[in-house]
């Protein structure tokens, strides 16, 4: 009996030498065969109801090309290239560099609207201008800033970065349009708005006959981009609308030059909702600009205000609730965490000012900061503190 009992319990009681035992091991969560993957869980979290997230196309329809037209017109051209021995030779020697201008021209007529929409979505242009609507930019816009350079212009594409200094003067705008059509041009920014408005309108021209922008009715004059300091890169968006008839825009008209920023508050969504029966978005171009030193003068002398400066609000670190007996913690660092950071910095500043003499030159910095012997009776935590201060590590950076 005893041997039998021993045999039963021996596997539980006696642990063989060298055998790995997982003390306190238990299954955490659902077993792997049943659990969902991280991707599945993320998809579930980010799920949007397709009915609620429905996007509406508010633009002009994409030009339709029949397959027969493509094959008949283009394929013959392609065959011609293929039979050309010069082409073959160039391709073989890797000298066949395609003509970028011609490529761009063809691209604008074929896949450009689709690709432009993709990148505009990447920049969330439609979401911030219209909410649940989008459009395909059918009409290519050529917007060039002349910034005084003899050989180059700053062109607005689809999110490229242009210096705010280069966008001082109103750009030249060209697009293809028949002379009997009417157009509206809006230049707005949804970023870095100082009031609770949705956007600032930087330029508004209505009832443009054909492509003669200068002959249109200027409702708001051009204001150069004014991204505030510290806010980063703001989007500046040109949208061209096609009008079905002449529209009375007198409610948007402001005195010119319009320098009160509050008067430039704008909401594209409301604007579009009001006039949607007669306007259709057709063209889109946008760029990004950030603060530069030339803007100080604009804020002070043109807009008559102080220059705003902002800083990104980083999330505050989590600090554990304080305990009576913090074990395995350096007491000085532990206590500093729970003090007001201003007090801590004040201590450092006072220590620094103690060494400063109003009439004597400041002490020269130590050439080999850690080579200077510290007193033997100094506690180790204080030695470390002194060494850190000498090396410029840690909290001393807060006051310098």
């Amino acid at each position, binding site marked *: 009996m005893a041997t039998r009992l021993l045999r039963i319990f021996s596997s539980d009681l006696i642990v063989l030498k060298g055998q790995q035992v997982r003390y306190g091991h238990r299954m955490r969560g659902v077993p792997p065969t049943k659990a969902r993957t991280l991707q599945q869980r993320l998809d579930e979290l980010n799920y949007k109801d397709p009915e609620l997230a429905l996007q509406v196309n508010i633009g002009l329809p994409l030009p339709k090309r029949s397959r027969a037209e493509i094959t008949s017109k283009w394929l013959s051209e392609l065959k011609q290239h293929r039979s050309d021995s010069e082409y073959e030779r160039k*391709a073989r020697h890797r000298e*066949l560099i395609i003509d970028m201008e011609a490529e761009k021209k063809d691209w604008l007529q074929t896949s450009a609207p689709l690709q432009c929409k993709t990148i505009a979505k990447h920049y969330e242009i439609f979401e911030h201008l219209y909410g649940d609507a989008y459009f395909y930019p059918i009409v290519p816009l050529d917007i060039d800033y002349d910034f005084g350079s003899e050989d180059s212009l700053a062109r607005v594409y689809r999110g490229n970065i242009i210096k705010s200094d280069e966008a001082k003067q109103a750009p030249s705008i060209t697009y293809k349009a028949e002379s009997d059509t009417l157009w509206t041009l809006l230049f707005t920014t949804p970023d870095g708005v100082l009031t609770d408005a949705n956007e600032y309108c930087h330029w508004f021209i209505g009832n443009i006959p054909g492509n003669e922008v200068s002959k249109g009715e200027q409702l708001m004059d051009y204001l150069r981009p004014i991204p505030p300091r510290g806010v980063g890169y703001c989007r500046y968006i040109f949208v061209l609308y096609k009008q079905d008839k002449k529209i009375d825009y007198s409610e948007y008209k402001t005195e010119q030059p319009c320098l009160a920023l509050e008067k430039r508050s704008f909401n594209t969504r409301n604007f579009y909702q009001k006039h949607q029966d007669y306007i259709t978005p057709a063209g889109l171009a946008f760029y990004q600009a950030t603060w530069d030193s030339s803007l100080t003068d604009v804020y002070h002398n043109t807009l008559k205000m102080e220059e705003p400066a902002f800083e*990104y609000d980083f999330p505050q670190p989590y600090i554990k609730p304080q305990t009576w007996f913090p074990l395995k913690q350096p007491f000085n660092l532990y206590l500093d965490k729970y003090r007001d950071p201003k007090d801590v910095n004040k201590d450092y500043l006072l220590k620094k000012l103690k060494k400063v003499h109003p009439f004597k030159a400041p002490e020269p910095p130590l050439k080999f900061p850690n080579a200077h012997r510290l007193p033997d009776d100094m506690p180790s935590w204080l030695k470390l503190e002194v060494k850190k201060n000498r090396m410029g590590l840690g909290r001393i950076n807060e006051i310098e």
Partner: protein
Amino acid sequence: MYASYVGVKSLRITGYTLSSFLYGRQVHSNAELLNNCTKVENKNPRNMELLRIARKPVGYQLEKPGRNYWHKLQLSKTGRHVTAEVIHFQNGPVVSASTIEWSIKKQLYRLKDASAYQNIGQILARRCLESGIYFMRCDIRSSDGDKIKLFLKEIKRNGITLQEHKCYHNPQPWSSDRPEKPWAVVE
């Protein structure tokens, strides 16, 4: 605390509507506007990536290629065509150039030869510059083949940097060093 905040807010709104009812819409001067402004929002989703403070997925240690990127260059070839794309970690392909496009196909002799790769590289680089994407990660190795080497060379030659910046982590008061703030550097 919360209640008082709401009270003040509603008071301001009522005052505003009353004055606008009596005297028409009141326009504040720019200086006054700035006094009331305590925070400003930049809604540009790419701004945080340009400032290097956006979140970058870490991925898994044993996974290859990793997921630690905002934008990544991808090259894929099918039986007939070559396609180069820039992938965003959330939005998928955002910029692309392919021999399937008529505008490119038209001027090529073969759709998968070395000169096709070369031209695809050139066009993709230009489209990226026009779309404001100047930095991207690249897991394609130039040792993978002669054509791929040509493709990468063209991309670099046209001004794209095939490496992304590291994320900026905000230092805590007790951190030892203070890394340079990317947005404070003005050219």
